[in-house]
């Protein structure tokens, strides 16, 4: 076993005996929103009612401005790169 492999093996082995208190716990973000979704294959009567409009609404033509919490995200890059 060369030096690098030995170092990696030692580090891995050391991880196994770290006391729980020495393991830095990162912030875990729990996602309650996912759990409450509880979707199934049959949508509810509410959606059914909402869907009974007989006219087409050309939503894209007039909804061009997001109106949610994105106004809290400010500055920075304008493109993903």
């Amino acid at each position, binding site marked *: 076993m060369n030096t690098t492999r030995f170092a990696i093996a030692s580090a*891995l082995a050391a991880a196994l005996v770290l006391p729980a208190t020495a393991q*830095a716990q990162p912030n875990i973000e729990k996602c309650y929103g996912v759990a409450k979704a509880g*979707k199934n*294959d049959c949508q509810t009567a509410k959606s059914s009612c909402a*869907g009974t409009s007989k006219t087409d609404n050309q939503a894209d033509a007039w909804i061009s401005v997001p109106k949610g*919490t994105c106004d809290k*995200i400010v500055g*920075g890059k304008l493109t993903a790169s």
Partner: protein
Amino acid sequence: MLALPDLQKAFAGYLSGGDGVDLARIVRGDSISAAARLRIHRHHVQQSLATALAATFPTVHTLVGEAFFGAMAGSFVVKDLPTQPVLAEYGAAFPDFVDGYAPARDLPYLPDMARLDWALNVAFHSPDGPRLAAADLDSIAPDRLLGLALDLTPGSALVPSAFPIDRIWQASQPGANGSQVDLAAAGASLLVGRRSDDAAFVALDAAEAAFVTAILGRATLEAAAQAAFAVEPAFDLSTSFGRLLALQAFAALR
């Protein structure tokens, strides 16, 4: 009269935005017109699917608001009707759609938020199997440990982003305080996984992300460690591996 397969095909075409001319001829038109009857069906399908997408992509929904989300989801639905019956599995292509959705281009982080929402959805709906504990590896000789290829728990995914998507996610939660997120802050790589009763994510640094990416690609622990050292020579393998074990990020040995 159309044969059943042709009728179904024509109806599916209409739901996807077709003009429905061939259908209107064979749908009853008394009391309300055939075209109006057909539109009710189309609206019902589109709005049900948009509602399902809002439940699967709650962060995106919160970020852009109801009206914008409805319009964006509606545009997606006509291009990509479900191919399976489970609505929780619908929307795999939505993040890429958001990426190309012109009205959202001023929100460059939005596609990554959609990827995070999707990853959380997949993790949440994955089976919760047995986890690997440090004690399971105790008896394995060090040189065998090097050659071990571990599995992350089913449904785990790494969501890398050039944007601080963990902070954007926090700012979008119900009850979040009103503080702003600076988009110029460093990007984040989030490891998403199933927990006992929900889905969750943790932020990884660049070297840890390289380590986990290699493991997701079925690399051995030695190769994964090398990948992390290539990113950051001072990578603390013991601490990071110990932390992943403590998080129960790995599936039990097969």
